[in-house]
């Protein structure tokens, strides 16, 4: 279980539902490690500033991660936690590997999910 204030995605069904019902979704797939915690912190802080974006997290070692985020072609070269994927209307519009700053996250949100 991830110890964050974000909504956790814990099943493949929930993932599909989140992607289907929310036009704009940011999913951070990681662990409670040094590279992941700052990204969760950014998401928690900016969640209220982007009310039309659903901010979600997912445990990297969970079955749902294997079935969804880690199975995406966009992350096949990724070798750094966390895997962060941005969806718009069900499609992947951006994906990043490893730690990201607030400026990097908001730049993607403003560019891809505005």
């Amino acid at each position, binding site marked *: 279980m991830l110890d964050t204030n974000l909504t956790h995605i814990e099943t493949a069904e929930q993932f599909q539902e989140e992607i289907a019902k929310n036009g704009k979704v940011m999913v951070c797939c990681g662990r409670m*490690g*040094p*590279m992941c*915690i700052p990204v969760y*912190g950014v998401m928690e802080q900016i969640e209220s500033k982007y009310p039309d974006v659903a901010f979600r997290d997912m445990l990297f070692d969970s079955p749902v991660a294997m079935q969804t985020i880690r199975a995406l072609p966009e992350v096949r070269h990724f*070798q*750094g936690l966390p895997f962060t994927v941005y969806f718009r209307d069900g499609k992947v519009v951006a994906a990043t*590997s*490893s730690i990201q700053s607030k400026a990097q996250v908001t730049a993607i949100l403003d560019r891809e999910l505005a």
Partner: protein
Amino acid sequence: MDREFDAIVLGGGPAGLTAGIYLARARVRTLIVDTGTVGGQMVLSYAIANYPGAPDVTGRDLSRAMRRQAESFGCTVLPLADVTALELDGPVKAVEVADEGRFTARAVILAPGGVPRKLGIPSEAAFEGLGISYCATCDGDFFTGKDIVVIGGGNSALEEAVALTKYASSVTIVHEFDHFQAQPWAVAEAEHNPKIRFLMAQEVREFVGDGSLAEVVVASKHDGAITRIPASGAFLFIGYVPNTRFLEGVVDLTPRGEIVTDDALRTNLPGVLAAGDARAKRYRQITTAVADGTVAALETVAFLNAPPAA
């Protein structure tokens, strides 16, 4: 949120949080502004083995405990702040933060800490998260059964190289000098590991790959001979640099960018003090940062309580 404080602490690592605890305990209205995640470099450590009284605490837990302690005494903490302007030279100091506005105080403690040093070559950024990593514990298992490179020659580099042999089939340590800065015990442990080999006095020239890292290209500092090391991963542990670029031209810095202070941790500006890893000093540990934060806070209290100059 209040706009006027007695003291503003720039930086929420162990130095800044300790300063906040001491200031708030002294009834000094205190704002801690951090441009990143509260905890600073502590957050980047899974396990902290040498913080007295808290054996095996995680960096995250220690950070949270310090923050909770500071807030319990009345400290306001503003994380992930984008500081857009600083005015430190007058009697009233001002800090402007994007989306938050302008905050003022009579005293400021600079505790911005350090940031991991990077090689600064163009291909480094291109492969971050695609083979280049700064955290062995986080990303080591991506390289199970693969050949990797560890860059650096200090304790962190050698310790992490040994730890990474748990996953990797081979680890090549690349170091810029022909001797290590690490302690002898760390060097010995690496030398005795059959999966580790050493390439000394090398300059990293380039990271190469198609989508993900495939090779690390290094050049001998003796004769310039190029070696291409096949590697799926490269872990960089080449130290830290002070996070003081935003202070250039604001307070006195050493040529290495460290904040110059006196024994009471005062900078060249009245009412502006400095604490922690960004300060010019020899040893940088969580404990020394905590000590700095204490001294800077007590000195700030004295400054705030001093009668105005006649």
